[in-house]
């Protein structure tokens, strides 16, 4: 028996496809946690990154915040919040948001700051309002990098939402954590395969979004 046999056995078992512990339900839970965390993290990090990148100030403070946030272990934070706050969705949201803010913040800042100066100067010379410069000149050019920051944040959130199961919440991590406790290796490997597939799906989704929203002129460069 190798890993692929386990995966095959897991997915061909009809009992895994419906009911309270079925794959569709766990998948939806997992996506809910991930989407909520990514939304909150983007709502915090994108505006700050755009403004600091536009003004070019506060880079050191951002780097410091990002290092500090990165140093906090997500798993530890999850257990700590759970022990302190009890069973709710908050103990899961806090580590996931802390995890996702640094990549979004740092890449957005770097992306906007490194936009070619000549079009920005041209826009300013034409008398464009700073907000218009940011949204109509800098943002479209910086978009590929900003998306790559969002993408790495999303992938990390999807992989990390697995640990929510450790503190008795749902999601695809349920299979991994339950499987480990029940010594049901088939379940563990099946859950791991599902999370990995979901992460790759997110990768593909961001690639498609990039194709759709990035201006062809910027892409070709």
């Amino acid at each position, binding site marked *: 028996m*190798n890993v692929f046999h386990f995966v095959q056995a897991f997915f061909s078992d009809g009992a895994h496809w419906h009911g309270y512990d079925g794959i569709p339900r766990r998948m939806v839970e997992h996506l809910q946690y991930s989407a909520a965390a990514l939304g909150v993290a983007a709502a915090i990090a994108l505006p700050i990154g755009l403004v600091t990148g536009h003004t070019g100030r506060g880079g050191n403070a951002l780097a410091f915040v990002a290092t500090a946030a990165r140093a906090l272990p997500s798993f*530890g934070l999850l*257990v700590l919040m759970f022990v302190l706050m009890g069973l709710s969705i908050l103990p899961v949201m806090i580590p996931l948001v802390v995890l996702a803010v640094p990549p979004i913040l740092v890449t957005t800042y*770097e992306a906007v700051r490194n936009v*070619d100066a000549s079009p920005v100067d041209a826009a300013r010379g034409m008398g464009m309002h700073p907000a218009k410069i940011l949204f109509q000149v800098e943002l479209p050019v910086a978009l590929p990098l900003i998306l*790559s920051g969002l*993408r790495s944040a999303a992938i990390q959130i999807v992989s990390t939402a697995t640990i929510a199961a450790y503190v008795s919440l749902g999601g695809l991590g349920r299979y991994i954590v339950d499987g480990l406790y029940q010594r049901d290796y088939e379940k563990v490997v099946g859950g791991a395969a599902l999370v990995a597939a979901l992460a790759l799906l997110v*990768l593909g989704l961001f690639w498609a979004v990039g194709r759709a929203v990035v201006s062809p002129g910027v892409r070709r460069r």
Partner: protein
Amino acid sequence: MNGFFDMPSDLQHTWLGLVGWHLQESLVPVLAGLLVALPVAQLCVRFNWLYPPVLWITTVLYAVPSLAFFVVLIDYTGQSQTTVMIPLALYSLVVLVPAIVDGVRSVPAETNAAAVAMGIGPVRRYLRVQLPIAVPAIFAGLRVATVSSISLVSVGALIGNQGALGNLLADAMFYHRPILAVSSVVTTAVLAILADALLVLARRLLTPWQPPGARAAARAARRGGRGAGRPSGGRPHSRDAGEGPAPALERVP
């Protein structure tokens, strides 16, 4: 059993013992990743066509969750330290290869040409010219790899208590002692920040030609250059961000 440094006896380690174990479990993989990343990156620099596929493979590998990686490896290496260290080494590799490639590529062509003209062979040119100039980029990658490795080790607690300081978390739940979780989180974060600071210090020592204020000076020059129309293109390694996948530069469990 109330103190920050008092460890429950089932962990079979003192606080210092856990710190040592944690550092070993997180830093050895980074070192292994660096040792493999150097030749791989050099191949990518030498053969340009190799880089995009390598970048794609590393991005996909990076998308595999650490916990999934751990549990799949249990079948081969058991519930042991090795099971935790193999994925960490792979993640370090994934962060380091693009960092080193960008660093070596940022060596100016004139510098290479000057080295060739002085009769410096390819090996010596690599060791004495290209690597030193690439040090800032390599260390940027090392910092991210080290910090994320240190915080990822905790997840090893899920596979048979192989998580060093992370093992405290399970105890915090079983005995309902929040102080144990605080101890785990704070110690891990402090270790990560200390390691990061040490790497910054090492980078400064290795690149004495870059005075500490160099970055600020460069930024000031760049800001001043905005009005004067600085040469287009921005930093060299932001160039191909639109095409291949830009390296995802961080990961926590």
